[in-house]
């Protein structure tokens, strides 16, 4: 086996790594955003419940939570390791993403909401047209960080047997007895994925930035 084949075997796991990320990150964002809206605008009881959810989910190591959710999900419905792992990872991420969205919502000042209400916008309209567009912009930098974490955490589904980059590296490392090269190659691919994602989101942040004079 030549070097090219060696690398492309490991790289073929990228599709799973990217797949896991593309399922986990948006599902975490969806759940996280809904929970954050409840947290900030849903009254005291909702805030307490959300706070508990956040504290517990963020207090447990991702791999432990991943295992719990994975085995719980697999018990209930017959999902592939890929899907169950991805969705579980999304749940793990949802608590972190909730905090990101919440932080962004809170740092759009309450005055903006008042300004919107004074024009005659309803509460939901004010949130939808005035607070959210500003919060989204504020959330991009921390969200970019979370995206990088989810890409890296996607390596955890290795433990569930999903044939992603790390698993592929392990397999070819074992058959060729060249573990160092195999894992270094995996590291390079992960690094490129993280790097590209971060750069992309950075560009998005610049593009969406609200113009202002220094």
């Amino acid at each position, binding site marked *: 086996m030549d070097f090219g084949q060696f690398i492309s075997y490991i790289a073929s796991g990228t599709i799973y790594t990217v797949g896991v990320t593309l399922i986990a990150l948006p599902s975490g964002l969806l759940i996280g955003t809904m929970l954050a809206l409840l947290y900030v605008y849903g009254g005291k009881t909702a805030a307490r419940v959300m706070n508990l959810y956040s504290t517990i989910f963020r207090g447990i190591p991702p791999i432990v939570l991943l295992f719990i959710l994975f085995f719980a999900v697999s018990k209930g419905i017959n999902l592939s390791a890929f899907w169950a792992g991805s969705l579980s990872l999304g749940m793990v991420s949802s608590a972190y993403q909730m905090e990101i969205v919440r932080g962004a919502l809170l740092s759009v000042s309450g005055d903006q909401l008042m*300004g919107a*209400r004074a024009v*005659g*916008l*309803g509460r939901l309209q004010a949130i939808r047209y005035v607070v959210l567009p*500003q919060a989204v912009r504020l959330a991009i930098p921390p969200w970019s960080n979370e995206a990088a974490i989810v890409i890296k955490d996607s390596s955890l589904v290795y433990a569930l047997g999903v044939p992603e980059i790390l698993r592929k590296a392990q397999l070819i490392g074992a058959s060729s007895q060249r573990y160092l090269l195999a894992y270094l190659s995996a590291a390079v691919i992960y690094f490129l994925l993280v790097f590209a994602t971060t750069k992309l989101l950075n560009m998005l942040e610049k593009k969406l930035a*609200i113009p*202002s*004079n220094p």
Partner: protein
Amino acid sequence: MPKPILTIKNLTKTYGENVIFQHLDLTVNEGDTIVIIGPSGTGKSTLLRCVNLLTRPNDGQIWLDDMEITAKGTDEDQVRQHIGMVFQNFLLFNHLTALGNVKLGLTRVKKMSDEAATKKAMHELARVGLADRANHYPGQLSGGQQQRVGIARALAMDPRIMLFDEPTSALDPELIGEVLEVMRQLSLDGMTMLVVTHEMGFAREVADRIVFMEKGYIVEEGSPDEMFNHPKFPRTREFLWKITELYGKKEKDAE
């Protein structure tokens, strides 16, 4: 016979134990410009916020034209579109251009078409002298320009009355004039206005009546001439003297 636009009767507002004002009465007639003055913490902002239903009074009534807006079951959003409010710190929507700021209420509250809203918004921006800044974001405008956008945003809703809460006190001295000029023109055009301000030059020249509030009570109200030249209460004279002194200093700083 003057027609009252805003009638406040027996209004009381408390925050917990803290009584902000009690049994307050005030009437604003069509086309009038009423200036409220008074020391800090007297409840002037709270009064304006009550009128705009941004906070609920504990007791008393407020009428807008013939409708009691403090009545149970009033549609607050409906009321607010008929009352324009201009804030001390502008509160422009940071993510929208000047035009976008003025248009938002038109498209989302009045459900106007984009085209009609743009036309109307451009008209209002022209009215405050900012047609050429329509596509600038708040961060690209001076404080005075931002406040004028704030005025245009409120005007666009065709309000029955405009409330101003210290519209110039966050501005650098050299920017105050342009905002006051817009307000003066508005008053001349017959807009009904309730203005909290410490700009005594504006009050003297533009106000139909000046209301002096202190510690939650209306101490005295009257025409500028009565208030400046023959106040009934020593407190009024004292306060006006002090505030004019301060205002004069500010003007000198600007030079």
